[in-house]
């Protein structure tokens, strides 16, 4: 198992290095002059050149990349052009807020979609199966800015149950009510996909020979489902959930903008608009790290739960 996980870890690091290169090169290719962007239209050409030199933008690309990535590895994310302040000062709180939103969305979507998928599978072919499958699919096809607006109109404007804007300041519990609507918009997108995977895995397990063995042993249906079906059927679902984490963080851009929430998606969006490359690059890299961590955790979980992988090479 150790060897397998080391392999995965190595791959994750490699992916991260590649991602950083792509992000860096993309930052160079994008039109725009950072010095000009910072100093504004009326600054002199020499002042812009001096600032670019000060920022190290006149050095060859590999050197710039190396300077950037080694600073990055030490935790120095650079200075934001836009705010003339360290990127980290904005990035970490924004990431924290995004994670809060993501956690709320996950806490709702994971149990709900697994329950939905498993219920559909256990009632295969019946009305409830059709309803869950069709509802999941329909919700997944609605873009989050549409469902978000509909939610705002219904629950915030008409019913006035929940606030329109998501609050960014305050403790987790004070902001929680304002996170519910954006979280639900995210849940809509994710529910169909996860439920579908959970349903497929459960159907496969239900049709398996070992479930037949368990049933013909005379085990009660409940025991068969919980002990024999779910453990095997939810394994693939774990991987799906982990990959959705990546989507979730990326998908936050739209939701955070819509709900005016100061998360990492909103931060990146603003950075891109104002050509704040250090902020943009750092933001994308951090999302990359979060994504890779999530898949790594899924791999570990999958390995621990699957005896075939856990015991590989251990004999």
């Amino acid at each position: 198992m150790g060897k397998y996980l080391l392999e995965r870890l190595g791959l994750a690091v490699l992916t991260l290095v590649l991602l950083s290169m792509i992000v860096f090169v993309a930052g160079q290719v994008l039109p725009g002059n950072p010095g000009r962007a910072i100093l504004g239209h009326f600054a002199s050409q020499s002042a812009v050149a001096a600032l670019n030199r000060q920022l190290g933008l006149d050095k060859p690309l590999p050197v710039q990349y190396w300077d950037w990535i080694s600073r990055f590895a030490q935790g120095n994310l650079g200075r934001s052009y836009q705010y003339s302040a360290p990127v980290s000062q904005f990035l970490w709180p924004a990431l924290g807020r995004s994670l809060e939103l993501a956690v709320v969305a996950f806490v709702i979507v994971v149990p709900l979609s697994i329950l939905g998928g498993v219920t559909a599978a256990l009632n295969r072919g019946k009305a409830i199966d059709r309803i869950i499958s069709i509802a999941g699919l329909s919700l997944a096809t609605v873009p989050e800015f549409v469902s978000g607006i509909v939610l705002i109109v219904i629950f915030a404007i008409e019913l006035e149950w929940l606030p329109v804007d998501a609050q960014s300041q305050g403790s987790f519990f004070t902001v929680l009510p304002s996170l519910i609507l954006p979280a639900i918009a995210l849940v809509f997108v994710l529910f169909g996909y996860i439920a579908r995977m959970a349903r497929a895995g459960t159907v496969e397990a239900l049709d398996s020979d070992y479930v037949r063995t368990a049933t013909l042993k005379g085990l009660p249906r409940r025991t068969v489902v919980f002990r024999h079906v779910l453990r095997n059927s939810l394994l693939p679902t774990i991987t799906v959930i982990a990959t959705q984490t990546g989507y979730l963080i990326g998908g936050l851009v739209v939701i955070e903008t819509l709900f005016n929430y100061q998360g990492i998606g909103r931060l990146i969006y603003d950075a891109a608009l104002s050509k704040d490359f250090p902020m943009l690059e750092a933001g994308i890299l951090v999302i990359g790290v979060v994504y890779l961590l999530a898949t790594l955790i899924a791999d570990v979980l999958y390995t621990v739960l699957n005896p075939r992988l856990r015991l590989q090479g251990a004999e």
Partner: protein
Amino acid sequence: MTLALPAETSPTPQDRHTLEVDHLDVAYTVRGNDRLTLRDISFRIGQQESFGLVGESGCGKSTTVQAITRYLPRNGRVTAGSITMGGRDVMSMGPEGLRRLRAREVSVVYQEPGRALNPSMRIGRQVAEVFEIMGSPRKEAMERAGHALRTVQIADPGRVIRAYPHQLSGGMLQRVVIAMAIAVEPSLLVLDEPTTALDATVEAEVLDLVSGLREQFNTAVLFISHNLAVIAKMCDRVGVMYAGEIVEQGAAQEVFDDPRHPYTVGLLRCVPRRGHRKDHDRLDSIPGFLPSPGEVPTGCVFATRCALADDRCRSETPAMEDVGGARASRCFKHEEAPALPRATPADVAMRSGRTSSEPVIRVEHVSKTYSARGESVRALVDVNLELYPGETLGVVGESGCGKTTLARVLLGLTAPDEGSVVEISGQRVAPTAARRGRDELRLLQIVFQNPDAALNRRHSVRHIVGRTLTKLAGLDGEEREERLIDIVRSVRMEPRHLPMRPAQLSGGLKQRVAIARAFAGQPAVLVCDEPTSALDVSVQAAILNLLVDLQSREQVTYVFISHDLGVVRYLSDRIAVLYLGRIMEYGPAESVFAGPHHPYTEALLSAVPTLDGTGRERIRLEGDIPSPADPPSGCVFHTRCPRRLADGTCETVEPPLREVEPGKVMRCHLPLDELGRLEEQGASSRSSDDRGHEVGPHAVDHDVEVVGGLDP
């Protein structure tokens, strides 16, 4: 071992039955239509009795099991009839009653032990569950699980209890499943093809175990199998199924000795028997096809394939009729059934055997070593073979012995180690097919086990065979078309099959296409890798006949790989017995089967169940095949050999292949006169077989050995 006893002398109390199935009909709903899959199935199993259901694929054996345990697929349901177990009506049971029935009264063992166990639970837990249902606390259940595993004589129960299913071999897993099934001492044990996925030696052990447990626990048994010999060995009474009906029923020995339904008669004639050989006997076959599922013909279900059928058979449905001696046959003409005319003429006019002194294929010092994860696995070790035109080499051995690697090396699909020599018609060929010329490729062709996987589903028969004609025979235009029709006819297909795609053909026809493709380039050597293992026995017979005819006409050499010794014996001129990649015995087929045998060959031969039921003394092999990555020292077979020398030679010195008779080599330290000879009575059995032929070609021999099966 359990002998098949005639019904009247069996210890079955006739008044109480463990299982009664009466006029059972089962239908599947397919696209809104009901398809009647089982029709009027009736049988009874007395206490402690063992009853067998035998038939080809699609006959409804497994559906019967599913109906009895009420585990039919979601679209299946019982439409008529009743099932009574221990006096209680199974069909009317509620969920709780059904659960209790499954927990206490009936246990089921299925074909694939590897899939029957939960992959993410330890074995001990899974076995213990059975006791927990019965109310044992968890700790006690675990202890009883350990005890149950010891009951099935599993090696190292302490390790097994902590193991996950993927860590155990197929034979061990089946023991675990049997341990679970027998643990609660059910009144009925259902075995659905329990040994079909296992090697012959393992099958023999599992069957012995089941027989032993039956005696110990006094359990009634319902045994489902496609293998007539297995049923004969395991069952007191038998029901022969065809197209969803039981067509004949009675004491197993009587049914197999003196069948009274044309289907049973035909089936028994399809199977190669001891003493039958390709050069003087031809297998019979059953013409036509199984009716498609759900098709309910008017009249007898078998009428369209029956040579005895007349107008009455085609219009009236025969009922199960008592034919005396507690036997019943669903046939108006059960008295004439034994005289069913053959579908294939019995006599063969064929040339066989060596016609040239030049070997067509020569294999010298062929080895193959795989490296995986730092370990090297020797899949083939110094194999030497010579084959002449028109000969058949049978390659036998348990799974993992190197049979398939040998085939792949010959074909150039796997490159052998340095120093290996493969010569075809005196020419050394390149190690891989990619580097072989067109002519070398043409000379060596293959027929695979599974025609479904071997034929491209998107191509028509014309394309599949025609392409080979273009590529290997270099034909085109009208010449190609003529040859195409020639070949298709030679495999007994019609030009009308040419535009069809594989999906439109039956399994047997698909295999014919594969054979036609292989023959299109006029090969010198045809490698057949289990070509009939995926086919039903009646289809197998037709394919074997075809292979024999083609060989006699084209003088092709076959390398015939099979686990079915009956088939190998019928076809082969020479036999190579492989074990852990090494040739253990190699020589003329007659001499290899006559003995004296290498101890491994002896074990293989004795593991095969026989239809006469008398059974020879079985040679038991201890344990599983060792890992080829870590072969035993000395003779690789010593860990399982019942005859190994007491002085320890076998453990330390690897025996060389020595010539024990002209043309026959063996890898064993033992002197010839200490080796076993399984067929000392073989001479007499063969003479009785000949006598059978004198009496008439339609007589069914009483002293026959039927090996092999009806379907995979």
